[in-house]
């Protein structure tokens, strides 16, 4: 496992002023996957966008971990529905003009 691609959670805790328990909670609920890299708990750098989003929801909007889980599920559903709308709109173009 290449350490280069991982960000230690400790650093994120310091930077964003969040408790380690916040990340543990996200891990327990399945929203993130904590990996052990060279004896430190890390997350993959590709997940940083989602994790920053979760941190913002938590700190800025006072949403707890369960709420973040719900918000992410709903956002995923919105994304799927938006894609469906695009497909349906494209099909409707057949009947236009």
């Amino acid at each position, binding site marked *: 496992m290449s350490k280069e691609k991982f960000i230690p959670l400790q650093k994120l805790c*310091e*930077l964003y002023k969040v408790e380690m328990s916040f990340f543990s909670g996200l891990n327990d609920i399945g929203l993130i996957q904590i990996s052990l890299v060279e004896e430190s708990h890390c997350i993959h*750098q590709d997940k*940083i966008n989602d994790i920053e*989003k979760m941190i*913002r929801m938590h700190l800025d*909007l006072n949403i707890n971990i369960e709420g973040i889980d719900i918000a992410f599920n709903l*956002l995923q559903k919105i994304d799927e529905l938006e894609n469906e709308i695009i497909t349906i*709109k494209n099909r409707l*173009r057949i009947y236009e003009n």
Partner: protein
Amino acid sequence: MAFIDYYKILGIDKSASAGDIKKAYRKLARKYHPDLNPSDKEAERKFKEINEANEVLSDPENRKKYDEHGKDWKHAEEFERANQQQRQYQRGQQQSPFGDFGGGDYSDFFESMFGGRTSSRGRTSSGGGVKFRGQDLNASLNLNLKDVFETHKRTLTINGKNIRLTIPAGVKNGQVIKIKGHGGEGINGGPKGDLNITFSIENNTKFKLDGDNLHTTIDLDLYKAVLGGEITVDTFDGKVKLKIAPETQNGAKVKLKGKGFPVYKKEGSFGDLYITYQVIIPKNISEKEKQLFAELAKLRPS
């Protein structure tokens, strides 16, 4: 430069307490937060507005200044000259938590009255060497349907940088393609973000696209429809000869397998082309034709 009513934006009156402001702000922030409204430009605009309103009203010093001078802010330049030194105060310590969204994007009114913001939370040099992936960038690309019939390369200029990318055949209208590593620069040596390109595809052809299948209607003269024959029809990329069966009905459809649109990311695979025949009844017929039709009619009394 227009005056902005920050109280109105937050839906509170001038006597609102600090608690009322916080409550109103949080309620609106939950509604318009960009993380909860992805790709919604209107929500993003509203969020910036409420963010700005909160930044002014949640800070007693800013609020006082706004209440005293806000409406008379036509004399901004004079005021600025007189208070140039005062404007150097540190704003970074009491800013909104939404640093990643609002940074540097304030109204002229705000900039004139309070100056620019000096720092933002999170992804700053205070990160102590933590590597961060760069921001994802969004762009849209307008193409014609003909442009996406074949895979081709195209150079786009995004934020002043030329990016050469391959546009796969069969990409759909509204489809978003993520180009990894072509977004914003990473921080502290972190990887670059991604570039999300939304395709807007205009169809100016006589073909209608349904998934990967194409549909078109062609005119068929009455005699060929009745007696059968051969015609040449346009497909999306050329012409084909078609045999018309005798007694072809108006509205009859034929399917030309593999003559439709390319299937996205499945090289050599194509949808089908559906042709609908529209039988054309002759107009301005001569006396002789009339007689002959009458004779035909007698042969098939209805």
